[in-house]
């Protein structure tokens, strides 16, 4: 962990910025700057990237853009621009948007290092999130986490191949033995490599450590009987 962590806070409501600042002021070794628009934020990140770069940027998603000349109109656009320029900075979202569509869209497409909800964030949560982000890990607020898990569950339920794999898995000692017992909708067999990649995805989605854990979790969640 560097001695000083440089953080840029982006929100169009000054009161919110002040509120977040009030949480962050209790954390040590933070150097915080704030801006009220994404365009400002992006230019600040870019200009300081060479000599004194920011480590983390926290941004809201929705911005009230009174100005017509706005280039980056929201948090998603800002994150996209940063990723496009391949700037070495961790991005975090602090927002009021907990609608699954927005959440899913942002996480799926932009892969932010953190997704925190304004409503119930605290000094503790922010500290934990910053630590994880600096380690290169991902932090989602519990509520968001739950939503993603449920979503994965629903998707797995719709995936006939995934369910077949989960059902067949306990019956076979080796994954290679599964080949021949898993079929696609059109009747063709699923190859071992496809089964393995599917299993990997299932493990991440259901946050399972290994295949045994996966089957247990699937049973727990009612995906299989």
């Amino acid at each position, binding site marked *: 962990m560097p001695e000083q962590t440089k953080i840029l806070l982006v929100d169009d*409501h000054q*009161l*919110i910025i002040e*509120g977040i600042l009030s949480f962050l002021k209790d954390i040590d070794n933070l150097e915080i700057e704030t801006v009220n628009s994404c365009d400002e934020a992006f230019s600040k990140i870019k200009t300081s990237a060479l000599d004194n770069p920011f480590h983390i940027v926290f941004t809201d998603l*929705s911005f*009230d853009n009174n100005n017509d000349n706005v280039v980056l109109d929201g948090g998603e656009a800002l994150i996209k621009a940063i990723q496009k320029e391949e700037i070495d900075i961790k991005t975090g979202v602090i927002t*009021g948007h907990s*609608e*699954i*569509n927005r959440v*899913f*869209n942002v996480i*799926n497409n932009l892969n932010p290092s953190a997704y925190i909800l*304004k*409503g119930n964030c605290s000094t503790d949560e922010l500290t934990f999130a910053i630590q994880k982000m600096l380690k290169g890990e991902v932090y989602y607020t519990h509520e968001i986490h739950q*939503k993603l898990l*449920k*979503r994965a*569950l*629903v*998707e797995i*339920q*719709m995936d006939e191949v995934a369910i077949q794999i989960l059902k067949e898995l306990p019956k076979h000692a080796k994954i290679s033995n599964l080949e021949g017992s898993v079929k696609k909708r059109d009747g063709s067999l699923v190859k071992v490599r496809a089964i393995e990649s599917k299993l990997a995805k299932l493990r991440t989605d259901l946050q399972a450590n290994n295949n045994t854990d996966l089957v247990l979790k699937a049973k727990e*969640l*009612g995906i299989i009987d």
Partner: protein
Amino acid sequence: MNKISFFFLLFLITSISFSQSKDVDSVSYYLKKADKIYGSKKLPLLKKAVFFADKSNLDSLIKDTNIKLGVESFYNKALENLKFSNKNITKLYIKNKDSSLLAKKLHFKALENKILLNIDSAYFYYYQSINISKKIKDSLAIGRRLLSVGFLQKDAQDYLGSEISFIEALKYLDPIKSNMYLERVYNGLGLVSEEINQPKEALKYYKKSLKYNTINKNNLGYLYIINNLGLLYQNQKDYKKSILYFKKGLFQDSIKKKYFSQYAMLLENLAFSNYKLNKKDSVLHQYSHVLNIRKKLKEFGKLSATLINISNYYKDLKQNKKAIFYSDEALKYAKQTHNNKKWLEALENLSQLTKGEKSKQYLREYITLNDSLFQKERQLKNQFAKIRYETDKKEKENTVLKTDNEKKQAEIAYEKQQKLIGWLVAASGISLFVLSIMFFVQRRRKLLFQAQLQRVQAREHERQQIAKSLHDEVAGDLRLLHQKLEKSNLLEEAQKLDTVKDNVRNLSHQLSSVSFDKVSFKDQIINLVSDYFELDFRITVTGLQEYEWQTINDAIKRLLYLSTRESIQNSKKYAEASKLTIDFTLEKKYVHLNITDNGIGFDTNISKKGIGLQNLQERVEELNGTLQIDSEVGNGTKTNIQIPLNA
């Protein structure tokens, strides 16, 4: 029963076909038999052939046998038989309207008149027959009839007309190389040329006729031509040369057997030439031989000529008594057979041989006959000319009528065409009108639908704006207030404000329109489902993965989304369901959404629709879709939505 009738039918058919073939055999048997016989004995055999042909019911056979019978009847002057065959031919013509039969009928009519010596009528019918044949382009028939006409005219001393007829016959017979009749036409031309005092031409024609004769190997024809050649020289007073020809004929093989009559003719002519050369020793003998033959063959017309010859012979020898006897005889036969030439000659002889009142009597008779004959000839010639003129005129009239008819027909056809075009134009006009109406109706419907969609979209946009300001402004301000309250330790108020904030957020959620730009329909449905998914409220989605949702109109997808949301909410809130199935089915023209839960259900007759369902119903109707809810208390609820994909 069926079997019996079948066998009966079989029997009938076989017996019919059997008897038919039997009849055909009989016909050919009698025809062959008739071929081997000469003269009038042919007729009964031919009549039998006609009888069996009639029985066989084969038209071509009936036609052929009757024609044969008719022709032979004419040669044998059997008028009744000729009429009989002509009646059959007429019947056949009425039956199958074959123009060649009509031509034949008229031909036979001409032959009948020829037997009856109605020369002008015969001529008339010949011309009628020729006209029919011309229409059906039967060159052989035309040529043959013209040949007959030519001879008819020659006999009536219409030599010019005869020559014209013969020449016209050549026009038809030459192209089809009918050598048989060409031979006869040239022979006829020779005879006519001789009559009009063109012996050189006559000789040329006879030679031509002989040429064809050698091709045809026609022995009988040869005898006639040779005889004519002999007569030609005889008339030129080259008796020696004429004798050469007559003898050529007389030395033909088996002439006495087959061609007795022709033998007599040649012999008679030879005798005449001999007589003229004063080789009188054999003449009388030859004449009496001819006389016997003629009597035997009952050729009384020719007999009168022989008698005149004999009379002349005696007249030269001044044996008047004998001469008068033979002239008297000749007169008798000439009268009987209408041999006018010999009749005159006989009268002339008698007037010369007798004296006084008797001679005067013969002379007067001669003059009267000659005058009447002369008049008759002239009449006949005029008649011929008239008939020819009239038929020509008729033909012209016919052609005029024909062209008139054609014109009229063309006019009618044109009118019909115009009418048809009119109808077509009208029909196409009507169909165009209908089509355009349909098109406009369709277009109007489409436009209406599009307007509907736009209205829906505008509304959604408005909702979006409201939702956005609720979320960003109201909720944001509330949040700040909440934080401040918390900091001011007004926890109770802060808690209350939190609920208000949640409510506002929910409201914003509900209001916010669904758009599929950023997140696809499929993902949104999954998101929606996962929003409500609980371990004790399991939602299963089927049919979502299978279809391409990008192509579906956003308004429809939005409706599906909202319907899904409304149904899930209802099931979760009121139905106490633990399981929910959502099934999407996309067809060519419709999309179906079936949502089934295992909740407590409700009585659809009693329960009013909630505001959510009412809104949904309106939205479905906006898109011309149908919403159907089936439920029974204790048996869950089934929601069935069908939306047309295009207007």
